[in-house]
């Protein structure tokens, strides 16, 4: 009986090597590469961060953090500088490995064992704090590169855009209102347009979970409003996690707000609840 259990343990989907678990379905547009039983959101949450700790040279950037993100939710994460917001994003996307604790995508996919590109391919998109696009490529090419398709070397060498994929790019261009800049090199875009392009690239990947780091930094009021619309529009179908300093912006989009402080969750709830929380007031306004 014990041996049978051991055997079962050996066969667990999340423990076997990728090439065993992965069933290679054709990468047709519209269908994500299915890893059977993997992005399992039947219990509600799409992201499980449990007891995660990350330290850099003894300094605990993340300290025993536990956080769940539900499928389709729009979650804002706020917190003073050094609260560990960006480090948390790094852990989810595989850039940094947590020292302790677990990060699961759905119920079955262990993100701490996957590399950055694999995490991106299973549907986690990320926008950096400092907007990063491919400066030498045109807006169109930027979106084309982000397109959800087979991204290994040989298929890419002979890749041709299908009509369907072109339509998808056009659609996204419409959403991020860069239709007139299609053939402009990305380095010539304004700051706000660059932010939108990066969001567009995220949408092109057809992700289930979007991690958005400071989307309105340096934007004008109108641009910020437009971005708020964009992000609330994306929630529902996608889960969106927004890290932001701009409180007005957070108030305009947030349903649930999580406050991070010194690497762990200080408070969680609606914007009003959080703002009236004495602990939060103390952290933000000082003792």
């Amino acid at each position, binding site marked *: 009986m014990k041996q049978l259990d051991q055997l079962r343990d050996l066969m667990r989907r999340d423990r076997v090597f990728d090439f065993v678990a992965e069933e290679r379905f054709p990468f047709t547009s519209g269908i994500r590469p299915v890893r059977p039983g993997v992005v399992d959101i039947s219990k509600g949450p799409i992201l499980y961060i449990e007891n995660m700790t990350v330290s850099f040279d003894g300094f605990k950037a993340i300290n025993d953090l536990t956080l769940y993100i539900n499928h389709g939710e729009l979650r804002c994460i706020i917190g003073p500088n050094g609260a560990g917001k960006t480090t948390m994003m790094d852990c989810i996307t595989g850039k940094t490995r947590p020292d302790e604790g677990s990060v699961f995508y759905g119920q079955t996919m262990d993100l701490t064992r996957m*590399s950055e*590109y694999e995490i991106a391919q299973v549907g986690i998109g990320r926008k950096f704090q400092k907007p990063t696009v*491919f400066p030498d490529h045109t807006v169109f*090419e930027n979106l084309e590169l982000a397109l959800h398709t087979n*991204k290994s*070397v040989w298929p890419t*060498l002979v*890749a041709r855009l299908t009509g369907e994929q072109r339509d998808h790019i056009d659609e996204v261009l419409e959403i991020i209102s860069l239709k007139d800049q299609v053939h402009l090199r990305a380095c010539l875009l304004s700051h706000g347009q660059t932010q939108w392009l990066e969001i567009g690239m995220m949408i092109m990947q057809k992700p289930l979970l979007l991690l958005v780091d400071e989307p309105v930094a340096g934007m004008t009021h109108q641009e910020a409003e437009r971005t708020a619309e964009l992000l609330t529009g994306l929630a529902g179908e996608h889960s969106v996690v927004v890290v932001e300093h701009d409180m007005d912006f957070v108030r305009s989009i947030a349903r649930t707000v999580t406050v991070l402080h010194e690497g762990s969750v200080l408070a969680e709830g609606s914007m009003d609840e959080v703002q009236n929380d004495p602990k939060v007031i103390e952290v933000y306004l000082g003792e």
Partner: protein
Amino acid sequence: MQYKSLFAQLFAGNTGGKIFLGILVALTVIVPVCNLVIPESSALHISTYTVTLLGKYLTFALLAIALDLVWGYCGILSLGHGAFFALGGYAMGMYLMRQIGDRGVYGNPDLPDFMVFLNWQELPWYWHGFDMFWFAMLMVMLVPGLLAFVFGWLAFRSRVTGVYLSIITQALTYALMLAFFRNEMGFGGNNGLTDFKDILGFNLQEDSTRIGLFLASTIALALGYLTCRYIVTSKFGRVVVAIRDAEDRTRFVGYKTESYKLWIFTFSAILSGIAGALYVPQVGIINPGEFSPLNSIELVVWVAVGGRGTLYGAALGAGIVNYAKSYFTAALPEVWLFALGALFIVVTVFLPKGIVGLIAKIKNKRTESKAPEVNSTAKAETES
């Protein structure tokens, strides 16, 4: 229809590339005619010495294109590309050595002269097979390719980038140079491989053989250029440029950047090996000096002078710098290294995009003064 779209992919907005290929085609016609048909007394005659010199430049141009592919497009500054060139050259040299047969100084039908001199009794295992041309040609590509693959696999997987990678590649070529200098390695020690007699049964001293080698170099250069051009205009090429500009972003978009770098590096090494194999029969010698770090650095200067990230610019740079080198080393031999250094400084400070960039700038200024339309120039820029 498909050929048409392929043609468009390779040449749309690529005037420089068209001119470059045009020059190559012209060379394949003019040079043989001027060398073989027009009598020596005529002013239009091209001497066999010049043919060989041109052939040598063409192999350098191929090498420069190979480096431009990894440096200009992928941002991998390899300071050891000379090693792949030399390895290809050695593989060809070994074939040519075996072709000498018993015509060597010692008249030994099985062993090359230097092995007889070292009192070796039999051919080392790694020399077997090199009497067959196809095997030697396979090794010309396989040996540099394999070395680049193993080296790249280790380096890129460990995320070694930038100046660290450059230093390691420099160390690689230096280590190979020291190894090849040793007699026990069985590659002729510091004399290298030389005294070649013939290739595929054709006497290497004959004018027609020289012309044949020249034509082979031209064809290799043209095909090499077209292949590289295909690569950089494909989506693969756009991913590679993306890696150069924002590697992290490329990873988070879902590309395994290590594989991309590995394959382009390996392909570039293979191309360098082919260039080396064409170089050796034309100059008649291959020795460990080809591995010297200085050679690889010179190669970087060619590409910088011509203009990175255009392919044909690299070939142009290789031609110009080597012509200058031939001229200077004959006229003012002491000055050459200073001139090279000065050239590098001038190019990095004043012409970051090389000669090609300078030409494009002049052209842009002219079109701008005619019609200052932002959109059209931006479009042209993205297409080129």
